[in-house]
C-alpha cells in the first residue's frame, strides 16, 4: 500500500493502480469518455486518448490522464482544480466541435455519454467552428455505423478484437481522416463481423447503433389483414424493467406480456416455449451422438456445440469452416418459434403464412441478422419477420403511452406461450447446457433427477468446465461466454485435445442477459450479475422445470411433430451451416 492524497483527502491505496481507480474507490468521480471497463470479464479500454479524465498532480508540469497514470508514493492529486476544470472543458468543446449536434433524432439520445458530459460540464455553446469530419453511413442488416458521430474512443475496437477476437474493426488512416472501420473500409457485411453488437453496447455515442425495426412492426399491427404474433426471449424479462426505473434484476414477465397485448399484438407468445422445443431437439441430438460415439461409430463427431446464439453461429462459420459438422443442427429458439408459428399455428388459424407477421423481442442485435438469413425463408417469406431489441420494445411501450408500472400482470397466450424453468435459463451463460442436461439425464438414465439445479454449470467465469454424472457415465461439459473464450475451447477441439461431450457458447458477457439489445449498462457489470441472479430466480419459481415435462411440448409432438429429430423436425427445426471464411487461393 502507498500513501497519496486526492482532493486533500489522505488515502492508502494499492500500488500499481491508476489514479482513476484510486479516486473511484475513494468515492471521487472523475469524468471519463474513452475509458471503458467491464470488471466482471476483465475487459479494459484505456487508450488515454480523449483527455477528459485529466487531473493535476502536484509537481508535474502537465496534466495527467487519470485512466492511464499509476499512483506513486506521496502523490498529491487534484481532480477538480481550476486548471483541470478549464482544461477539461476545452477538451470537451474541441471534441464537440467535430460532432454533429443532432441529439434530437440520435438513437443514442438519453443514453449518450458525450451528451451527459456536455450537461455535466455545462457546455452551452461550442466556441470552435471548423471543418467537421464526414464519412459514409454503413447500414448492415443489424448494425448501423454512423461514423460522423465517432469520438475515436476505440472502445468498439477493443471489444471486437480483445473480448470477441472477431477482428472486424480497426482504427484506420491518421489524423483528421482517422476512423474505426473494417479492412479496406468495406461495409460491415463484407467483414468478419458476427453482429454480436457488443460494439454498440460499448459505444459512448451514437456512432454504432442497431437497425430500428419499430416502424415496420407498427405498420404490420396497423394492417387489419395481418395476424401479428410476438415472441419474447428469456433474457428480456429480467432487463426490460430497467428502462422504466426498476432495479436491475427485477422480473417483469407479467407486465411485459400485458404491455405487448396493449400495443396490439394478436397473440403474445413466448420464445421460452421454443426453448423447450430446442431442448427436445438438441438434447435428443446430443444423446444420439453420444450413444453412437460410445458404440464406436467413427462418423460421429463430439463434442456437440450449442447453436442458439446467432453471433456464435456467425463466428464459427467464419473462423471454423472445417468444423461445420460439429455444432448442433438445431435452429435457435427464435427460428424454431418462427417455423412453428408460420407452419403449425398459421395452419391452425387457417391463414396463409404471408398473412402472418412474426415479431420477436430479443436481448440481441445478431437476431436481426439471423432472421434475415435465406435458409429461414420460404419463397422469400421469413419465418421471423422482425427482431426487435429489448430497447426497441421499451421505445414502443413509451410510444404507446403505456404506464408500465401500473400494468396488471398478464399471462402469455396458449399454446405457444407455455414454458418451463429450463427455458428461462437459456438467458444466462450455462443455462442452455443445464436445461439440456436436465432433459438428457432423464432420457438417458430413465431415472428422475435427484436434484434439478446443476450448480456446477453456473457462474460468470469466462470458461467453465464440469463433469456431470449420468448415473455412472461421466459427461464432460464445457461452457464459454465471449467469443475469445469460445475460441480457446474451439481450438482445443480442432487440435483433438478436447474431451468434451458438449460445449455451450454464448457470444455476449453473461450470455443473453448481457446481450447488445439490452438496456445499456455503461460498463457496470453488477447490472449483468443482477440479471443473472434474476434468471435463476425465475427458473426456481416455475412449477415445471424440465423441458420434456412441458405439456404443450408433449402435445405439439403428439399433434404434429411426431418425434424429436423426426422427419418434420428435420425439415422445419434443423438447419445447416455455411463456410463464410476467406480462402487464399492460387490465381489462374
Amino acid at each position, binding site marked *: 500500500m502507498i500513501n497519496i492524497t486526492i482532493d486533500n483527502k489522505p488515502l492508502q491505496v494499492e500500488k500499481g493502480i491508476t489514479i482513476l481507480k484510486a479516486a473511484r474507490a475513494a468515492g471521487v468521480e472523475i469524468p471519463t469518455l474513452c475509458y471503458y471497463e467491464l470488471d466482471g470479464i476483465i475487459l479494459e479500454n484505456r487508450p488515454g486518448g480523449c483527455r477528459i479524465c485529466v487531473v493535476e498532480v502536484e509537481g508535474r508540469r502537465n496534466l495527467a490522464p487519470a485512466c492511464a497514470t499509476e499512483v506513486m508514493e506521496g502523490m498529491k492529486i487534484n481532480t477538480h482544480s481550476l486548471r483541470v476544470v478549464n482544461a477539461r472543458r476545452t477538451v470537451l468543446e474541441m471534441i464537440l466541435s467535430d460532432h454533429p449536434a443532432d441529439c434530437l433524432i440520435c438513437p443514442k439520445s438519453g443514453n449518450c455519454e458525450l451528451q451527459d458530459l456536455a450537461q455535466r460540464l455545462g457546455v452551452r455553446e461550442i466556441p470552435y467552428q471548423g471543418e467537421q469530419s464526414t464519412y459514409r453511413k454503413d447500414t448492415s442488416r443489424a448494425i448501423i455505423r454512423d461514423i460522423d458521430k465517432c469520438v475515436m474512443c476505440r472502445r468498439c475496437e477493443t471489444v471486437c*478484437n480483445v473480448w470477441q477476437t*472477431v*477482428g*472486424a*474493426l*480497426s*482504427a*484506420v*488512416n*491518421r489524423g483528421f481522416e482517422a476512423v474505426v*472501420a*473494417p*479492412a*479496406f*473500409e468495406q461495409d460491415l457485411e463484407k*467483414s*468478419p463481423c458476427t453482429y454480436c453488437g457488443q460494439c454498440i453496447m460499448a459505444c459512448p455515442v451514437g456512432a454504432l447503433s442497431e437497425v430500428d425495426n419499430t416502424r415496420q412492426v407498427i405498420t404490420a399491427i396497423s394492417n387489419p389483414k395481418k395476424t401479428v404474433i410476438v415472441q419474447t426471449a428469456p433474457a428480456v424479462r429480467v432487463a426490460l424493467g430497467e428502462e422504466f426505473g426498476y432495479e436491475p434484476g427485477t422480473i417483469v414477465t407479467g407486465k411485459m406480456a400485458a404491455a405487448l397485448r396493449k400495443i396490439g399484438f394478436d397473440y403474445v407468445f413466448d420464445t421460452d416455449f421454443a426453448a423447450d422445443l430446442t431442448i427436445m431437439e438438441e438434447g435428443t441430438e446430443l444423446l444420439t451422438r453420444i450413444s453412437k460415439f460410445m458404440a464406436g461409430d467413427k462418423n460421429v463427431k463430439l463434442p456437440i456445440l450449442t447453436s442458439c446464439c446467432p453471433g456464435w453461429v456467425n463466428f464459427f462459420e467464419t473462423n471454423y*469452416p472445417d468444423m461445420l459438422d460439429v455444432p448442433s443442427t438445431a435452429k435457435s429458439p427464435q427460428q424454431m418459434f418462427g417455423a412453428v408459428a408460420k407452419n403449425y399455428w398459421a395452419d391452425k388459424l387457417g391463414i396463409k403464412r404471408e398473412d402472418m407477421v412474426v415479431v420477436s423481442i430479443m436481448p440481441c442485435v445478431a437476431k436481426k441478422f439471423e432472421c434475415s438469413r435465406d435458409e429461414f425463408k420460404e419463397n422469400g417469406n421469413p419465418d421471423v419477420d422482425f427482431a426487435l431489441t429489448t430497447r426497441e420494445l421499451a421505445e414502443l411501450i413509451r410510444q404507446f403511452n403505456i404506464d408500465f408500472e401500473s400494468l396488471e400482470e398478464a399471462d402469455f397466450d396458449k399454446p405457444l406461450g407455455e414454458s418451463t424453468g429450463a427455458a428461462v435459463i437459456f438467458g444466462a451463460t450455462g443455462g442452455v447446457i443445464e436445461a439440456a442436461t436436465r432433459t438428457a439425464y432423464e432420457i438417458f438414465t430413465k431415472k428422475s433427477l435427484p436434484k434439478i439445479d446443476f450448480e456446477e454449470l453456473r457462474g460468470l467465469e469466462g470458461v467453465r468446465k464440469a463433469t456431470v454424472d449420468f448415473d455412472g457415465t461421466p459427461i464432460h461439459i464445457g461452457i464459454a461466454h465471449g467469443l475469445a473464450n469460445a475460441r480457446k475451447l474451439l481450438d482445443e477441439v480442432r487440435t483433438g485435445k478436447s474431451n468434451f461431450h458438449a460445449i455451450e457458447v454464448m457470444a455476449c458477457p453473461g450470455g443473453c442477459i448481457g446481450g447488445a439489445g439490452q438496456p445499456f449498462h455503461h460498463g457496470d457489470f453488477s447490472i449483468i450479475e443482477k440479471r443473472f441472479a434474476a434468471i435463476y430466480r425465475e427458473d426456481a419459481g416455475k412449477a415445471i422445470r424440465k423441458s420434456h415435462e412441458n405439456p404443450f411440448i408433449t402435445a405439439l409432438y403428439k399433434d404434429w411433430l411426431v418425434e424429436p429429430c423426426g422427419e418434420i423436425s428435420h425439415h422445419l427445426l434443423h438447419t445447416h451451416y*455455411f*463456410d*463464410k*471464411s*476467406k*480462402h*487464399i*487461393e*492460387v*490465381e*489462374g
Partner: protein
Amino acid sequence: MAKVKLAESKINKIKEICANFGNLPGEAINVLHKVQGEFGYLPAEVQEVVAHELNVSVAHIYGIVTFYSFFTMLPKGEHPISVCTGTACYVRGAEKVLDEFKRELKIAVGETTADGKFSISCLRCVGACGLAPVVLIGEKVYGRVTPDGVKDILNEYRNA
C-alpha cells in the same frame, strides 16, 4: 466463402518474409516494409495473406498500412519521385518544386502516371537538410532542386 486470389510465387514470397520474422504479430510493420519492398505496393490481396500468416485480422493490417505514410496500396511508378517536405526543405521552397512535378506530370500526390513511369509522393526529411530542398527519384538523391530544374530531372528518365 470468399476467395482471395494471388499468384503462387507471390503467396510463397509473402510466406517466406513472414516466416523470416517468425510469423510474429509484433513484426507486422517490418513484414509490411519488406513485402512492399518486394512488390512496390501493398494491394488488398497481399494484406490478406500477411494477416493470415501473422494470425491477425486484416482490419489490423489495413490499419497499419493506412497509418504510416510510407505504405501505399497503389502501385508506384517505374521511377518513384519522393519530394521531401520536411521543415528545412519546406522553408527552402519544396512546395513549389512539388507543384512543378505535379504540373509537369499532371498527377496528384499519391498517384501514378498513365504510362506507369512516374509516381509522386511526399516524405519528411531524408537527413540531407544541407541540400534542401531534396528530391529522391528511386534511390538517387537530387539536392537544391528548383522548379526550373524539374523538367531537366524528368528528362533524364523520360528518354531512358
